[in-house]
């Protein structure tokens, strides 16, 4: 296998790999980022990086495994840079949640949710609303949610990978959850009351 690879020009080998593996890589990237354009860019960067560092691929692992490792690093870089993007100022809805002396604002005080979580999760309408609420989060917050829930990693692992402090991370989670809670309340739980 190794000898065969070395006989062919590198770019030809990589082209074969694109043909064989780009769909798998793209599917993975799309699943992780939920963004077609971003996923395409990441896969393209992966193959360009593979071409450049081909000398480091010694045929010890499967090409697909090696490409996946490169892609996973690219996705991590993507999360890292998203997390560092500042949140636009118009997203200051949080200001109204608490009063100046840090109590719940009367309109924002959490009221009991009457629906059973297990039941609503199977309803298409609710799933759509939750999807939309997740999409509406600022990029930085959405990244934090993706890492916490989709990657199933511990807080410490996430902070290490993002190179951020625990405080920085949980504060972002806190803001995301305040917004998600409010979004679900307005669009679902209290909708009848409005």
């Amino acid at each position, binding site marked *: 296998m190794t000898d065969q690879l070395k006989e062919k020009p590198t770019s030809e080998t990589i082209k074969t790999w694109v043909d064989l593996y780009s769909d798998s890589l793209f599917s993975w990237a799309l699943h992780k980022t939920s963004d077609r354009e971003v996923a395409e860019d990441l896969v393209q960067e992966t193959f360009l990086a593979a071409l450049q560092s081909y000398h480091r691929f010694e045929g010890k692992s499967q090409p697909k495994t090696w490409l996946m490792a490169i892609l996973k690093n690219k996705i991590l870089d993507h999360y890292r840079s998203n997390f560092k993007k500042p949140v636009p100022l118009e997203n200051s809805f949080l200001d109204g949640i608490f009063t100046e002396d840090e109590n*719940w604002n009367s309109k924002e005080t959490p*009221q009991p949710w009457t629906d059973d979580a297990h039941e609503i999760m199977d309803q298409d309408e609710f799933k759509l609303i939750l999807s939309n609420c997740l999409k509406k989060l600022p990029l930085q917050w959405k990244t934090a949610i993706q890492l916490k829930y989709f990657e199933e990693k511990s807080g410490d692992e996430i902070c290490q990978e993002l190179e951020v402090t625990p405080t920085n991370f949980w504060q972002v989670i806190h803001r995301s959850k305040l917004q998600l809670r409010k979004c679900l309340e307005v669009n679902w739980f209290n909708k009848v009351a409005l």
Partner: protein
Amino acid sequence: MNGIMKKLVFSCKKASELIDKESVFPLNWLENIQLKVHTSLCKACLEYEKQGHILDELIDRHHQHENQDEIPQVENQELKIKIISKL
């Protein structure tokens, strides 16, 4: 909440922060006690804590649902052509 209680147990804003912090990192013993005292006295924050757990479950299940079997395989022929042209 009245003034004396606030001094004893801190604000709802702080309590809500600790509630969400706890979903990612373990609280230290002092934070734990403060939060327990606060939620035993404050219905709103107790509700926020409950809803936080529901939210966790909803987002978890939402993603699992999208990820039921394997990751869906998506073909992208245009991308293939685009990448090959750049190599």
